[in-house]
Structure formats: C-alpha cells, structure tokens
C-alpha cells in the first residue's frame, strides 16, 4: 500500500529510518492516521529521538490492544502530538503473552505514568523502570486483567470483594 504522508510525517519517517534503520518494522496508514511499528527494545530511544529532535513534545495517550494471537499478543500504542508541526503519529510496539514487558517512557514524558498504569491494569503488560506501577482502576486485590479477550463480559463471580448490604455488625 502506498503511503500518502504529509511533509512533516515524511520528515519524521525519514529521520527515524535514518537513525534507527533496523528498529522500524513497518509504517502504514489507516483511515488517514499514520502508524509506525517499532521493535520493543528501542521504544525509549526512539521516543527520546522523537521528542528531542522531531518535536513530538506532547504525549496524548498510551493504550493497549489485545490482538489475541499466539505470537506477540499484546500491542502498546503511543499517541504522540507535535505542536509545532501540527502532526499526530502513533507508535506501536508488540510483546509476547508469556511475560509482556515494555520499557517505561516516564523518563521521556512524565505523563506516561498514569497511562502505563492503565495499560498494566487492563492488560497486565508491565513496564520496566516505571516509578509507581500499581493498578489504577481496579483494586490491587483483583487478580485478573479485564480488557484481555478471555475475561468474560459479566466478570468473574467472587473475584472482587463487595461491601455488605447490611450495616456492620461489629
């Protein structure tokens, strides 16, 4: 598929392929948005490069996707915004089901803190060097990762302690 990149995005892609020739897996477009899939181990260095050299100073969001495949099951997507060039680009990394681990980008953008906690809470992807990796929506006592595809829509009975309906006895 041929790409229809704007000038800024073309500069971004060129710069990345120049500096990280063996770390870029693919660049593709869908519905007008540009996605760059990279090697998982290069995420911090590529993010630092994007922020410092290419002015992607604003991290809008990080989220996970459960691809539900046997290999490289989880995907973590970084939604980056360049205010100077008015461009949005999505970085994607993939990780295995057995021990999903990605390097944390909190050292690059400190707002990654909560976003990564959300990915961890919902998918169980852990982030190396994260300052405070706790669950964010679910309580710590909860054992499951609810946005994984195998988690049932109705939840698992007994998986979460619920308050009693009668006033406390003691």
């Amino acid at each position, binding site marked *: 598929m041929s790409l229809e990149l704007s000038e800024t995005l073309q500069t971004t892609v060129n710069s990345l392929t120049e500096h990280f020739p063996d770390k870029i897996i693919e660049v593709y477009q869908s519905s*007008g948005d540009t996605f760059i899939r990279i090697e998982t181990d290069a995420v911090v260095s590529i993010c630092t490069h994007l922020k410092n050299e290419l002015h992607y100073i604003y991290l*809008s969001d990080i*989220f996970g996707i459960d691809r539900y495949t046997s290999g490289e099951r989880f995907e973590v997507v970084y939604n980056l915004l360049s205010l100077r060039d008015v461009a949005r680009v999505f970085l994607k990394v993939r990780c295995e089901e057995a021990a999903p681990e990605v390097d944390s980008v909190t050292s690059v953008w400190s707002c990654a803190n909560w976003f990564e906690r959300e990915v961890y809470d919902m998918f169980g992807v852990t982030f190396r060097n994260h300052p*405070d990796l706790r669950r964010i*929506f*679910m*309580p710590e006592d909860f054992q499951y990762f609810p946005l994984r595809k195998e988690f049932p829509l109705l939840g698992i009975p007994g998986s979460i302690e619920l308050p009693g309906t009668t006033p406390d006895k003691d």
Partner: protein
Amino acid sequence: MKLTDIQSRVHSTFFTEHQKQLYQSLEDKHTTIEEYDDGDPLTTKMVLNMGPQHPATHGVLRLVLQLDGETIEKNKLDIGYLHRGVEKIAENKTYQEFMPYTDRMDYLSPYSNNVALCTAVEKIAGVPVPERAQYIRMIGCELARISSHLLWLGTMVMDAGAISFFIWTFKEREKIYDIMDRIAGHRFTVSHARIGGVANDITDEATGAIKEFMESFPGELKDYHKLLDRNRIFFDRNEGVGVLKTEDALQFGATGPTLRGSGFALDIRKVFPYLKYDDVEFKVPTRLEGDNLARYYVRMEEMHESIRIIKQCLAKLPRGPIRTDNAKQAYPSKDEVYYSMEGMIHDFMMTDTGICPPEGAECYHAVESPKGELGYYIQSDGTGHPWRLKINAPSFTNLQVLENILDGEMVADTVVIIGGVDPVLGEADK
C-alpha cells in the same frame, strides 16, 4: 510524630492489598523529602483521606494527602470508584448501541461525547455527513460546552465560599436543558447524534429557544464578571493557587482549559478542525499564569466564544437532509421505516448488525470536549462490533496533573484546585 510507618496506624478492613499499596506508594513519593524534628508541635504530620464520598471532590475522587501542618507535603490520587468498564462493554456492542454509554461518561456534556464517538466511527467507516447535521452538531456541542462550564463555574465558586452563585449558574443550565429537550427530546443524556448525521431535525421551536438564550445569556455572563472579576475573596482564593507552570504543562500532559491556562493554545477545533469548525470564526483564549484564576478567565472567555460560534452556526445553517441517505451506513428516517418494507428491513439490520467498518482498519479521532481532547481510537475486525475501542478521556489526563500540582499547596485550597481542574469522574474512571 514521625510518619515513617503509616500502615501500622491504619487498619484497613476493605481491599486490604489495595490500601496497603496506596499508602506504600504515598510513603515512597519524593523519598528525598527531609524528616522534620519531632518536638515542634507546628510540624505535626498527618495523613488525611479525602473522599471518595466528599461533596467537594466532584464525584468519587479519593485523595490521600500527607499534611505537614496545613501544607500538603505529598499526595496520591486513588481513582476507579466509578469504573464500569465501558471499553469492555463497547467491544460487545454495535457502534450505535454503545452511544448511550458515552452520554454517561462525561455526564455534564453528553452531546460532545456522542459527537466524538460518531465522528470516529464515520472516519473509520467513511460515512459522509450532511452539512446541516454538522451544523446542528456544532450547536449541540457548544451548548454542551456552555452547560459544562456553567457547572464548573457554579461549583468552583461554591468551593471558594459563595453558595448562592451556584443557584444562578444552574438557572442558566436549566435553560440549556430545556433547549436540549427541544432539540433531542431528552434533557440530560441526549444521545442525539447518530452515525451519519443526527436523530432528528432541529425545529423552529428549538431554534427560537436557542436564539432567545443567545440574547439573554451574554447579559448573565456580564453579571458573573461583575460579581467575580473585582471580588477580593475570589481573587485571594484563586490567584497563585494550584499553579501549573508553562514548562510543566506539556510534561504532565495537561489538556483543555487547564493547558490553555498555562499558555499553550492547543485546541483540537483549531489544530485538527472537524465538523465545520474551520468555517466559523472564534478565538482560542489562553493565559500565561497557569493558576486557578487563569483557568477561570480561559473558561469564561470560552463561553463567549461558544456564543459566537452558535450565532454563526444559526446564521449559516443550510437546508437539506440531516442524515446520510444510505441505508447501509445510517438509520433510515422514521417515515421510511413506518411506510416501506425496505425501510423496516434496513432499520432492523442497522439495529442488529449496525455499520461494519473494513477489517483491520484503525482510526483515531479527537474532538475538543469542554474538558479537553476527547479522542476515540477504534480498531475494527470487520464485524459490527469494535475489536478495540479506546477512549482518551480528558478528565483522566487532567487528574494526573492534579496529582502533580497539589504538592506544596494548602489543604484548604485542595477543593478549589480540584474545582479549577474540573474533572468528571464518570469519564476519568471509564
């Protein structure tokens, strides 16, 4: 008193592991902070749990504050008390079926949420939207923005000590509810937008009510300005409070009025125009101070700009259809459903399967909701249900800013700062 071991003093009975980790995380925050001398009573430290059931936290936000006298030494936010798993629900519903859930995300501006979902689905499935529908959506979004800002204004001023003000802003919100009732048939959770257009055309009665509101509301805004702009108490409570420095704003990921109050004119309506926002004139108000007062000015000016936008929309409102006339992409009109066989079949199919974007397609579309950038990422697997739907909620992003700016503030200012950041927990907790 030293607080080296909070946990031995707190006896949690519920979600014990969760409480343990939260207190541990509070203890670990800024571990470089100096220990104060024990003997001085002025340096008494305590841990204060604020919320989740607290009237000033705008919902079910829980703050764990470690106080040194009256100063917040460090704090941690605990959210998730309103977590309903809407993203999981979305994966099991058709796109149109999911829309009422978006009403309940940011329940102060349901219209913007509907539009955010619809524009994202239209982008991924390539559905055209008639011009008239786009203008109606813009009117709805801007009314929702005024309504949301009015609630923020009322509660924030109430947090600062003026109770009666709350009633005045709610008087105006009531009028917006009445207008929404006339536009959509619902006062609160409107669900008026549809994929490919809007549910029904805007009536003369509704247009009249909007015009009437546009006439009366600027006068009310003037009164608010008169009351607050030179108000000593209001200034003392807000000036220099909860400062988000310009250099930190992007680093902490602030969005919406919180970011614009710190000097960045990032408004999705201007940066990535959607609907017909590039056809109307409006300014993006910004301030440099980054304190609560700056956020007040930004939101007040935004209300003025919203009025301008609505007036232009009403003047430009073209004639024409309000929903795309392709039964494979959008619901047919009710006339067709009631009086023709095809219409009924299509209506049934839209309800049953809904619109199916191409397999493997992905898209992200953001709108500028009253709280900031509200984005929907959709990944399709070719069926009527999204494979993954992610909501980039502005309140969630802004709450993280709150956790960063609360350190070092006075405990009495906490409620004002929460009010100034204006989070909605229904949206932050998803």
